[in-house]
């Protein structure tokens, strides 16, 4: 008994010591695992064409591949076509419909490429092709592109242009709004925020043209001390009708 009574505390002491060191090791291990599992940035990546086309029967896959290969041989930047193919395939779009969509998309990208010329990047091409797909006239796109020499400004302006037109603002009025923003050297966030400001006034009962005019009229409003533009607290609150 006496031996047992001496042994038990001794074991207890060892037990209390071991878990502490194991907890310490576990914490360090967890820290390292956390570091290893920090998410890597997702960047646009070209999908594997063979893998994408494996979703289709061989004959249809060959037609799709032939179209993309032909575009590549013609010097066409095919990254966007590959992405669109992957999108259609994963969404279960039929091959003939996918091919028609690719042909239409390629035509829009080609038009965007001709407008942007040498300065075209994948991102600006995609944004410009999207604007053209919304029916914005090429001269409007060309004018907006001309006043935005930097690629990120160009992309922001194209995204905003597409959104403004989608909100119901006529293309030429949207163009004027964006020219005004460029003249006032508004940054990307402000330009990307223009459609939200227009939609705000539309929700208040304004017609899209009046909403865009209101946004343009208040574009010079001073920023708040925290740097946020006072977008919605405007002196005139009644719809102009």
């Amino acid at each position, binding site marked *: 008994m006496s031996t047992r009574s001496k042994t038990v505390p001794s074991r207890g002491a060892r037990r209390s010591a071991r878990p502490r*060191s194991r907890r310490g*090791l576990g914490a*360090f291990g967890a820290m*390292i695992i956390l570091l290893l599992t920090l*998410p890597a940035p997702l960047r646009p990546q070209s999908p594997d064409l063979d893998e994408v086309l494996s979703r289709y029967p061989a004959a249809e896959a060959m037609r799709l591949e032939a179209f993309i290969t032909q575009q590549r041989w013609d010097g066409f930047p095919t990254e966007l076509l590959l992405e669109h193919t992957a999108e259609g395939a994963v969404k279960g779009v039929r091959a003939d419909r996918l091919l028609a969509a690719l042909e239409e998309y390629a035509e829009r990208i080609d038009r965007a490429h001709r407008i942007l010329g040498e300065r075209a990047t994948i991102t600006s091409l995609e944004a410009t092709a*999207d604007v053209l797909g919304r029916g914005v006239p090429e001269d409007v796109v060309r004018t907006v592109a001309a006043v935005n020499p930097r690629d*990120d400004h160009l992309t922001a302006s194209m*995204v905003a242009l597409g959104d403004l037109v989608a909100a119901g603002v006529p293309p030429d009025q949207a163009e004027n709004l964006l020219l005004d923003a460029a003249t006032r050297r508004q*940054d990307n966030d402000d330009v*990307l925020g223009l459609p939200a400001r227009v939609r705000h006034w539309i929700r208040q009962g304004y017609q899209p043209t009046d909403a865009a005019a209101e946004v343009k009229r208040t574009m010079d409003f001073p920023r708040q001390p925290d740097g946020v533009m006072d977008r919605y607290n405007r002196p005139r609150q009644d719809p102009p009708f």
Partner: protein
Amino acid sequence: MHEDVQRYLDGELTIEELPDQLRGKAAAWEALLDDVRMTAASGAPAWLEPRVLKAVEVASVPAWRRGVRWLMQPRTIRVAPAPAFAALAVLALAIALPWTVGPSASPGDDTVYVQLFLEAPSASSVAIAGDFNSWAPLELEDMDGDGVWSARLAVSPGVYEYMFVLDGSRWVTDPHAERYSDDGFGNRNAVLAILPEGSRT
């Protein structure tokens, strides 16, 4: 040395066998050899060796070479696992943080974290697919089981289109997106525009 003296010292002759004129020389040599034997047996004084070695070392090996020798000499280092893990973790943090979330990140490090969510209480799985991941669906999580599925994505600046996929087959547009785009297949993609900050110059 005379040959007979040498033979005496070698033990081949006794002192009596030596001629009288050589006996004095033989005795002198024997005394000298006894002194040498005694010196060898007692050894050098304790202070002599380190002093000689120190003088030789300082005189012949410059400091930089001794430093290199110290660095190149194999050594055994004993480290307990816990401090080793701690040092590794600190090192990994020092390497990883400036490239992910550090405020002093390099100009090329423009990663933005985006939280996307979808209310889908009846779904058994929700994924997100977009041109940021080649339209390969990435599973969202509903940790607390309240039907709100979310994902935190690290993306680089760009304009991305995406949709949610419910139960592996039903494509749903994000109702919370700021902007949308026709996908060309009869659906609407949500558009996520992340562009670098900075005013026009």
